[in-house]
C-alpha cells in the first residue's frame, strides 16, 4: 500500500496546507488552482463567461499563485530533490486528452483537487465532499481500465 513510506506524502501535504493557510490568514483568499484557467482567459476572450467581474478582480492574484507554485517547485528541485529535474514519461496524447478533460471538468465542477479536495473539505462543504468522492471514483476506474487495456 505504501511502497515509498508515508513521510514524503504527509510532509508535502502539511507544507501545502501551510501555504494555503498562510494565504488565508493574510488575505482571506482560498488558494485554489483551477479558476486560474478561467481568470487568465479573461485577458484574451471577450466572452461574457470570462468577463465576469469576479474573474477580472481575481486574475492578478491567481497569476501570482501560479508563479508561486512554479517557484516553490524550482526551490525544491534545486535544494532537496534526490533526483534533480524531472521529465515525465507519460505519453503526450495522454497529457493532451487528460488535460482537456481536466480543464473542462474542473471548470464545470467549480473546483479541482485543491478547490474541492483541500479548501472545500477544510470548509466542511458537503458539495466538495461529493465532488471529491466523484473524481476519486472516476479517476480510479479510468486508471484501472487503462491498465487493463495495457496502456501504462
Amino acid at each position, binding site marked *: 500500500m505504501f511502497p515509498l513510506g508515508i513521510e514524503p506524502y504527509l510532509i508535502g501535504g502539511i507544507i501545502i496546507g501551510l501555504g494555503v493557510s498562510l494565504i488565508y490568514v493574510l488575505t482571506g483568499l482560498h488558494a485554489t488552482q483551477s479558476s486560474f484557467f478561467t481568470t487568465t482567459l479573461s485577458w484574451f476572450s471577450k466572452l461574457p463567461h470570462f468577463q465576469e467581474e469576479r474573474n477580472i478582480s481575481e486574475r492578478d492574484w491567481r497569476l501570482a499563485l501560479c508563479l508561486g507554485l512554479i517557484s516553490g517547485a524550482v526551490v525544491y528541485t534545486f535544494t532537496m530533490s534526490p533526483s534533480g529535474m524531472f521529465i515525465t514519461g507519460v505519453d503526450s496524447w495522454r497529457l493532451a486528452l487528460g488535460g482537456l478533460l481536466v480543464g*473542462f471538468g474542473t471548470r464545470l465542477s467549480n473546483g479541482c483537487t485543491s478547490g474541492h479536495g483541500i479548501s472545500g473539505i477544510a470548509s466542511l462543504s458537503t458539495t466538495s465532499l461529493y465532488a471529491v468522492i466523484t473524481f476519486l471514483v472516476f*479517476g480510479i476506474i479510468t486508471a484501472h481500465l487503462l491498465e487493463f487495456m495495457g496502456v501504462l
Partner: protein
Amino acid sequence: MNARNIAVYGGGILFGFGLACSGMTRPEVVLSFLRLDDLGLIFVMGGAAVVTFLAINIVPKLMKAPALGGSFRPRVSVLTGNTLIGAAIFGIGWGISGQCPGSAVASLGTGNWPIIVGLAFMFLGAYIRGRFIRDRN
C-alpha cells in the same frame, strides 16, 4: 505588485514546494495512486486539508479579519448537477493523465517541460466550458 499578491506568491511557494516534495508533480506517482499501487496521495490531500481546516476554523476566532484586508469566509458552494458531472469528467482526465491543475503548474518548476502540452489543453478545456456551456443564474 500589491501586498496581497506578494502574500499569495509567498504562500504559493510553500504550496508548490509541498507539491514537488510529495511527488504530486509527477504524473506517474498520481497514476500509481489511482491504480491503488501506492496510496500516499491520501496523506497529501488529507494532511493539507487538516492543516487548512485548522486555519479556517481557529484563526477567525483569534483575528477579526485577514491581516491584509478582506474577510474570513469558508469555501462553500451549491451542489448542482454540473458539480458532479464536472467532477466525473475531471476524474476521467485525472485517470488518463495523472495531472491536476495545481500539480501540472508546479510540475513546470521541476523542469518537466512536456507538461506544457497538458496545461495548454487544460486552457482549451476551460475555454470550451466557457464558450459552450451556459451559466446558471
